[in-house]
C-alpha cells in the first residue's frame, strides 16, 4: 500500500502537538502528516481530543507545545484569519442575518478577493447543488441545504485544507449517507485536502483515505481505512472500529514471520502472521482480534476444521437476511460470529445449542497485551 504522505511534502504537519487546559491534557503529543488532496478522518469517542486538535489547526487554540506546519512553515501562532484553512462547524454557524449568497460570498469579501466574486459564488453553489437558492435566508432552507451552504462558504476561497467538525452529526441517517457520498465527490472534484472529524466509525471507514483513531488525547493508529479495520494495532482501535472478538492469548514461540499462540479453550496452539517489526516475543501475553465475519460455525459433531477451533453455546442469535449474528459463550469468553445464512435443517442454530467455532488462523490480528 503506497503511503501518499511520503511521496511528496505533506501539506499539513502536526508535530508533537500537546494542548493542556488547566492541568488536563486534551491533546497529547500528536504527530500527523497529511498529504495534499488527501481525505483524512480524526476518529474517536467524544472527549478524545479530536475537536481540540481541529481547533488548533483552525487557529482558535494555541498548542501548549509542538508545532503545526503548513507546507513546511510553522503556523502555530498565526491567527485564524491569516490561515488558508476552512472550517465547517458542527452547528454550521451560518450567518443568520445574511442570505445564502452573502453567506457564501463572505470569505471572498473578507479576504478582499472580489474579482470574479459573482462567478465564483455561483460556481460553488452549482457544485453543491444549490443553484436558485441565492436569495433564500438561512432559516428558510432544510438541514441538508444548510449543510451545503456551510460547505460552499468554506470552499469558495479554495483553502489549502478544509476542516470539518462532525458536520453531519445532526442529520438523519438517510440524508447523512447521501451527504457522505456527496462530500466525497466534492472533495475529489475540488482536490482540496479534507480533515474530517467524526465519532462514527462507519462514516470514517466509508469516506477516508486515512483514519487517525484517537483516544484520550493520543493518536492510537494512523493508517488507511482498510488497514485500520483489518490490522488494528491496539485494543482500543480493534474495539472502536467495527465489531470484534478480543481474546487473551499467550505467545508460545516466535519466528521471523509470525508466532505460535495458545488460547484457553483451544486444544492446539496455532500459528499466526505478525506485522513486520512486531515486538512480540515468546512468553508474552497478547490479545487477538478476530472480526465476527471471519468466524465459522458448525455442528459440534463435525470433524474439527483446520485453524483454531473451540466449542461454545449459542446464547442468542439475530437473523438479518443474508447473515445471522450469533452471541456465543465459550471457554475463551463471549464471542460474536456473523455467518452467512444457509437454509436447511437446524439452521439457524437454536439458542443453547453447542456448536463448533473456528476461524482461519491468518485472519487473526495480534495486539500487544
Amino acid at each position: 500500500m503506497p503511503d501518499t504522505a511520503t511521496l511528496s511534502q505533506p501539506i499539513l504537519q502536526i508535530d508533537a502537538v500537546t494542548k493542556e487546559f488547566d492541568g488536563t491534557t486534551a491533546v497529547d503529543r500528536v504527530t500527523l502528516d497529511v498529504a495534499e488532496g488527501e481525505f483524512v478522518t480524526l476518529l474517536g469517542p467524544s472527549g478524545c481530543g479530536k475537536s481540540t486538535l481541529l481547533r488548533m489547526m483552525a487557529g482558535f487554540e494555541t498548542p501548549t507545545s509542538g508545532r503545526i506546519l503548513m507546507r513546511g512553515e510553522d503556523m502555530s501562532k498565526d491567527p485564524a484569519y491569516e490561515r488558508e484553512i476552512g472550517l465547517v462547524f458542527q452547528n454550521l454557524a451560518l450567518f443568520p442575518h445574511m442570505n445564502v449568497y452573502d453567506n457564501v460570498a463572505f470569505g471572498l469579501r473578507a479576504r478582499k478577493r472580489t474579482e470574479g466574486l459573482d462567478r465564483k459564488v455561483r460556481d460553488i453553489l452549482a457544485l453543491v447543488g444549490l443553484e436558485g437558492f441565492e436569495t433564500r435566508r438561512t432559516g428558510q432552507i432544510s438541514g441538508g441545504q444548510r449543510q451545503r451552504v456551510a460547505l460552499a462558504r468554506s470552499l469558495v476561497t479554495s483553502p489549502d485544507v478544509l476542516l470539518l467538525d462532525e458536520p453531519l452529526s445532526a442529520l438523519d441517517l438517510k440524508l447523512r449517507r447521501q451527504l457522505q457520498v456527496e462530500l466525497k465527490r466534492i472533495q475529489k472534484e475540488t482536490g482540496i485536502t479534507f480533515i474530517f472529524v467524526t465519532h462514527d466509525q462507519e462514516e470514517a471507514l466509508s469516506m477516508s483515505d486515512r483514519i487517525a483513531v484517537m483516544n484520550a488525547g493520543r493518536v492510537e493508529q494512523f493508517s488507511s481505512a482498510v488497514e485500520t479495520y483489518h490490522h488494528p494495532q491496539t485494543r482500543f482501535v480493534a474495539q472502536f472500529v467495527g465489531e470484534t472478538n478480543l481474546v487473551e492469548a499467550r505467545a508460545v514461540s516466535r519466528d521471523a514471520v509470525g508466532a505460535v499462540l495458545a488460547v484457553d479453550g483451544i486444544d492446539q496452539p496455532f500459528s499466526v502472521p505478525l506485522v513486520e517489526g512486531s515486538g512480540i516475543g515468546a512468553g508474552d501475553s497478547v490479545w487477538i482480534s478476530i472480526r465476527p465475519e471471519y468466524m465459522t460455525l458448525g455442528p459440534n459433531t463435525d470433524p474439527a476444521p483446520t485453524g483454531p477451533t473451540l466449542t461454545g453455546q449459542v446464547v442468542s442469535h439475530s437473523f438479518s437476511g443474508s447473515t445471522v449474528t450469533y452471541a456465543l459463550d465459550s471457554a475463551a469468553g463471549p464471542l460474536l460470529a456473523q455467518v452467512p445464512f444457509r437454509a436447511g435443517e437446524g439452521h439457524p442454530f437454536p439458542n443453547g445449542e453447542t456448536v463448533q467455532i473456528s476461524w482461519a488462523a491468518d485472519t487473526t490480528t495480534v495486539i500487544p497485551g
Partner: protein
Amino acid sequence: MPRSLRIALLLAPSGLLMCVFLYGLIRLIGSSLVTDGQIDLSYYEAIFSRADYVAMLGRTLRIAAMTTFFCLLLGFPTAYYVARYRGNRNFLLLMIIFPWLVSIVVRSYGWVVILGPRGLINGFLTWTGLIERPAKLMYNDFGVILGLVHVLLPFMIIAILSVLMQIPRNLEEASMSLGGRPSYSFRTVLLPLSLPGVLTGITLVYLMATGAIVTPLLLGGLGDTMLGTEIFQEVMHFFDYPKAAALATVLLITALAVVLPIQILERWVARRLSDGGSQ
C-alpha cells in the same frame, strides 16, 4: 376556571395600570392646552418665546444624546466582555446591577464628594500643587453627563448583553476562519446581530436621560438646568401645574421624535434577523 376568565384576571392589573397611566397623561396634556374650557396655547407660546427655555430644551437633548453616546461607548465592550466571560458570569452581572441597590440621590451625591471644589480630585490636585485653585468639575454639563452615564450605564449593558448572549460564539469564529479580521468580523457579524440590543439600550438610556431630575439637580449648574429638573421645580416650588404640564408635553414630544424612529428601525432589524436565524 375557564381560560378566558384566567386571561381576564391576569390582564386586569395591567389594564388598571394602563387606565391610570392614560388618564394621567390625558389630564397632563389637557391641563397644558385647556384653560376655562377654551383651547389655550399661551403656555406653549410662553415657553418657545423665552430664549432660556429653548436653550434648556436644546441642552436637555444634547446632554441626553451625549450621555447615550458615552453609555454605548462604555456599555458595548463591557457587555461583550461579560457575554464572552468563561468564569462566573453571574458575579459580573451582580457587580453591574449592584449600583441599583443604592438610591440615585446617594449615587449622585457620591460624585459631589469626588468632583466638588473640596472633593477628592480637587483636594488631591491642590495638595500636590498641580493646580492652584479647584478646577470646575461639576455644576456644569460635564458633571451632569458623568453622573448620568454612571446611573444609566447598567441599562445599556443589560440591554446589549441580553442580545450578545444569544449570538453563538461560533459566528465570530466562522468569520475569522473565512479570513475576517477582528474589525471586519465586528462590523459584518457582531454589530448587525447585536443591533436590536443596541437600539433598545439607546432608547432606554436616552429616554431616562431626557427625564432626569436628581442628577442634574445635584451635579448641574444653577443657571443651566435640564427640562426634567425645571418641571420638578415648577411643580414643587411654584405650583405652576399648567406650565409644568406644557414643559412635560414638549419633553414627551421631542423624546418621541427620537425614540419612535429608533423603535421602527429596531422592529425592522429584529424581523430581518429572526427569519434568517430560526433553525
